């Protein structure tokens, strides 16, 4: 059962990582426009750069 000494912290750490990722998505406002985000992947425009026109 000694393996628990590693496994429990690991499982908690992984959970905490997930939680941190969730906080990040909240902070960067990724839930504000779910419909739009779904459609934007179909756009041929680069989304993470200003339009080069």
């Amino acid at each position, binding site marked *: 059962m000694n393996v628990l000494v590693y496994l429990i912290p690991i499982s908690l750490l992984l959970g905490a990582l997930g939680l941190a990722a969730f906080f990040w998505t909240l902070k*960067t406002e990724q839930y504000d*426009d779910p419909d*739009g985000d779904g459609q*934007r992947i179909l756009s041929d425009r680069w989304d*993470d750069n200003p339009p080069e026109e």
Partner: protein
Amino acid sequence: MAAPISACPACDAAPLAEEQAGKGYRGNGMEAKRIMLSLPQIYCAACIAGVERGLAKQDGVRSARVNLTLKRAVVDVDQDVEAQTLADYLTGIGFEAYELDPGQLKATATDKHGKDLLMRLGVSGFAMMNVMLLSVAVWSGATDATRDLFHWISAGIAIPTVGFSSQVFFKSAWSALRVRRLNMDVPISLAILLALGMSIYETMHSGKHAYFDAALSLTFFLLAGRYLDYRTRAVARSAAEELAALEVPRALRVVAGQADEQVPVSELEPGQIVRVVPGSRVPVDGIVTGGESELDRSLLTGESLPVAASPDSIVSAGEVNLTGPLTVRVTAAGRDSSLHRMADLVAIAETARNRYTSLADKAAAVYAPVVHILSFAAFLFWVWYSGDWRMSMNIAVATLIITCPCALGLAVPAVTTAASGRLFKQGMLLKSATAMERLAEVDHVVFDKTGTLTEGKPALDALARHKDRDLQVALALAEGSSHPLAQSLTQAARAAGVHPAEVSQVTEVPGKGIEGQWTGKTVRLGRAEWLGANAVGQTATYLSISGAKPVAFTFTDALRPGVEEAITALKAKGMGVTLISGDVPAAVADIAGRVGIEDWQADTLPEDKAEFVARLGKSGRKVLMVGDGLNDTAALAAAHVSISPASALEAARVVSDIVLLGKSMEPLAGAIDMSKSATRRIKENFAISAGYNLIAIPVALLGFATPLAAALAMSTSSVSVSLNALRLKKG
């Protein structure tokens, strides 16, 4: 609206940061300004790209970001860019756009609340999964020191999580208890706190059963219900705010010796002079001091014919000025105006409706006492029977946890979210939380005429009946005018491929019509009295060509699309349909005949309408009122449930429970079906959770409940309730 969302925080952050610092934009030294546009028609990726690309090409636009969920665009521009130009440009390239008043959109604060809920939900979800992991180990046979260790770790996760995530329930429960009331949150808080407290006690004494996972999954499922509920209401609220933001209540005050100034209507005082430009709404009650024009009073009285206004005419707030500019001396503004007197009628009717108790409240009223009495009785019984306090406490807490209203908390929001989401897609916005339940009970529908069954816009009759020459001249004259009849004539003639005649020196005579020169003759298009024509008994404009007998162009109010289908469908359901209007009998009879309503009333005053609806209600009918005008507001408020189109006056939209966002009336019948099936689902959900409790309560009372059983009962009932709600989506 939250801050601008951009996948490129850096490009946005720069101007934003400067704006906040008040330094202005480095590019041209001008201050930045944020404009919000409503884009009701966009739906796809190409629309997003089209709008953003189009806006980015405009002068002075720094960044533009479309939010498809809210159907809105946030544009950062230079100070000198007008929102209207951008909206016109977008409408020009095929994306209908309207300016929004950013002051009306206070969604930032409410959005914070949504994020807060989501955060608590996320934390409780994380904690629940981790504790569940440890609990599974305990359930599958961990003993002694291992079990205690797992329990301690669970406690370490559960205590702070409950402290953070469950605050929502504690606060609400506390505020209810303080005024000596019981709400759903009281048993919830009690269950969570007792489960946690007992588990800590058991853990300290190396007990076998700990309910940490139950306390957390309770929190998680209930928060999920809370969040769904919030989302539904937030969407409705932001759309309602958007409707309000579409009209900016301002007036042009005339100040002697200076340019007119724009002031909020609330700042006007009796005796002051305001200017009302053509096409705008009269902001106050008053007396015309200068100018000639025609007024459209359909929103106030339901009359479809415009009335003439000249000095000394009395005007009321809400009328629309059609042709010439008017100056009006204010006799009553704000609270004293006829708009507000109407609001008093509404206030009386409103209180009657507030007495409606929602299904959820009814369920909670039964549920909360039953659960508390049951667990307390179980505790007393076991203490009396066995004398073992600890075991009795265990049983009482297990009863409380197992009966806890996870499924009940999800039963209503899961269904309402699914249903209102679907109604929203069809163009119906539910403003009130109980609107759906009330809509499901409707058995009689009362319609207003002008602006509700009809578009409130005149359409030219029998174009082919007129001579080509008349049409060409009339088109040439009408093209330059903003009068609704002229515009409608232009549209109809253009659509029929008529080319305008060459008319020169076209001038508009306010309140009378349009005049011009054609092949050396004076031609006029306008009111009958002006041309010396005999007025026909319906909305019409007249054309005279230098002395010849004037020709009448008659108009009828076009039906709103989908009206016939909606009324046929309502009748097929066996509902009573009534048309009630303030217009003259001939006009009402005509429309009633066209849409197939046998039961109609004309010449009704606002009070009559409200009384008619109230009388129907007293005779046991559940009335749905559909109306848009100020003269309908009292009736809208008196009805069991009410609907108004988005084009309605704000006062009418405020009192109605549902707003029809699109132009078409067709979704009406479908919405009633939808609300019926939604109410059925809600009741089924109550039955499901009651069914689970029927099995679980005896087990718990007899002392056979284990944390595993509690977890199973809780998850299965919550999941089956949610799945049942989703069934609605597929019809």
